[in-house]
């Protein structure tokens, strides 16, 4: 690739202690994120997919500087974000914003919309309080809401409109990267389409990058330039979206794609991936996927495969290589 990436995550581990007993002694760790490396270039959309508990949201929290990793570094334009202080830190905090899944839980029900979308601006002293209303109107116009929304409260809006308000709030900071954590997953199909279109318009207009976290592969397929697939805390496959979707290498990626019911496929032939996702507290030895993998051999049960492959498209599997 060309220049320095906007965001680079380098061998990051995020662990949570498991405490037991009367002295709350640490008895082990939940290894939520293990040895994850990723990059996001300026203007790029990176899709992050995986099932519940795979660590994708924890990784997002680390990127947002809300959960320090136990090892590894997260760099923003080359600088380690956990070593920043003062004005530099405040600047990076403005440049990385988030839109959450649940627009009912992530907007303060007691504040009018104008205040919700400009709160950050006032806190960062980017505008004076008396300029807030004008600025809010501009932000809301960007996400397709009119000035009549300014002094209304979150409960007066539908789910799709609330998600627009969340996006306006993120935009207020002039971010370079927006982390979308299941941002369209809770919306009805036609509303989801509107919000996806909005995200794509804003990307074109402001040159935004997105880290797009989703369990819905059809949405990721549509908007992500590159995609990383996580399983039990690790990235198991990563590459250009079209390539990964058309030629998945890792058996888990293949299974994830195969089990999504999609209109137009042969009907009544959905394959089933047997078994459970193992506990993150006691991950299986070797390849974490071996307990469910149809291709697993002895080596997979003892030796952990490294992420390897051609430039751009990598997978961690002993049996198949990218």
């Amino acid at each position, binding site marked *: 690739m060309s220049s320095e990436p906007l965001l680079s995550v380098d061998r990051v581990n995020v662990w949570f202690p498991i405490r037991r007993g009367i002295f709350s002694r640490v008895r082990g760790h939940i290894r939520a994120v293990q040895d994850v490396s990723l990059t996001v270039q300026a203007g790029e959309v990176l899709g992050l997919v995986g*099932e*519940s508990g795979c660590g994708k949201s924890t990784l997002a929290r680390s990127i947002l500087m809300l959960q320090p990793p136990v090892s590894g570094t997260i760099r923003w334009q080359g600088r380690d974000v956990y070593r920043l202080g003062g004005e530099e830190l405040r600047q990076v905090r403005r440049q990385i914003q988030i839109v959450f899944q649940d627009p009912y839980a992530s907007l303060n029900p007691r504040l009018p919309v104008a205040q919700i979308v400009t709160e950050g601006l006032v806190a960062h002293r980017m505008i004076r309080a008396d300029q807030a209303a004008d600025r809010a109107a501009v932000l809301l116009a960007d996400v397709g809401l009119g000035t009549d929304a300014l002094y209304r409260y979150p409960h007066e809006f*539908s*789910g799709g409109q609330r998600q627009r308000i969340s996006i306006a709030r993120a935009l207020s900071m002039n971010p370079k990267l927006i982390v979308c954590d299941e941002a369209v997953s809770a919306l*009805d*199909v*036609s*509303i*989801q*389409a*509107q919000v*996806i*279109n909005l995200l*794509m318009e804003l990307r074109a207009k402001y040159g935004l990058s997105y880290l797009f976290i989703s*369990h*819905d*592969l*059809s*949405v990721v*397929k*549509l908007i992500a330039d590159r995609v990383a697939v996580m399983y039990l805390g690790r990235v198991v496959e990563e590459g250009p979206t*079209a390539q990964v979707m058309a030629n998945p290498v890792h058996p888990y990626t293949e*299974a*994830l794609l195969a*089990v*999504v*019911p*999609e*209109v*137009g*496929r042969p*009907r*009544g032939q*959905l*394959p*089933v*991936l*047997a*078994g*459970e*996702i193992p506990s993150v507290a006691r991950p299986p030895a070797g390849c974490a996927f071996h307990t469910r993998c149809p291709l697993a051999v002895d080596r997979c049960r003892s030796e952990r495969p490294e992420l390897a492959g051609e430039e751009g498209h990598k997978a961690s599997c002993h049996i198949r290589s990218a």
Partner: protein
Amino acid sequence: MSNPGDDKKRGPIEPLLRVEDLVVSFATEAGVARAVDGVSFSIMPGEILGVVGESGCGKSVTAMSLLRLIPHPPGRIERGCAWFRGRDLLAMPIDALRRVRGREIGMIFQEPMTALSPLHRIGSQLVEAQQFHGDIGRDQAWAHAVRWLERVGIPDAPDRMYAYPHELSGGMRQRVMIASVLMMEPALIIADEPTTALDVTIQAQILRLLMEAKNRDTAVLLITHNLGVIWETCSRLLVMYASEIVEQGPVEDVFAGPRHPYTRALLKANPAMAVRGGRLETIPGQVPSLLRRPNGCRFADRCPMALDTCRQAAVPLTRAGARSVRCLRADAMEAGGEMTP
């Protein structure tokens, strides 16, 4: 026909459930809102009937009304019948309906904790359900429950019988609830967004279980907003919009050639059907308020094909062969497919 639901050769058979002109309303401070407005449909044994529509279209209220689970007040079943094995579910005494619920008609909810008690172990809940409905010994009921937990893919089922619901993952709880429904071998299962909160690999497991139940001649009313799920599992579907059925027919036919502009818009907004880099089709405007339904077609204000006549009087659901549609411009939709008046 080539639909999964009717691959078996059968003579003419009676529908298992026939719903006629169901009207359900809710009293609100601002007035009476009709959440379901004149819905009629039927389900055959061994058929999976899909109901699709967006939040607030009335699909869940329809399902809940069949077992009279609508809170009253504010909800009220104003009129209609639901004929099930010769009895009207909506008119029978509530004690008789309790014998039907769970035994003859099972219900699967989106959120398993609405059906499982947090205070009791899985095993005792599964045994109690069987003993409520039949003269069955505790040991026999226990063994039956274990067998079903294994069938729905719960690992270490005999041990899990002693677990409380909170000790299981969300996907496992959902499968416990589904086991509790399937083990009673009901004739009809009403499944309201059964896989919406689940991961895709677990979703596939649950859909497989519903297909297996269908193959044992169980009928399923499957409510979902996921068109992929409908395509995969259903033989027929109903499309609901603003409290009414707007289109009905065999899944393959409706998806290949929707006859209602709303159905077509829903299909086009589905990201799975879109082209990468292109804009997704959206539906302009909003669903009309429950309190102020327009006189004519309820979709007219958002419809690219609407004419003045569409807004003048209520549009009837018109049947043609296996399909029905509530649209004055259905022929124009089919003929050219141009989305202009």
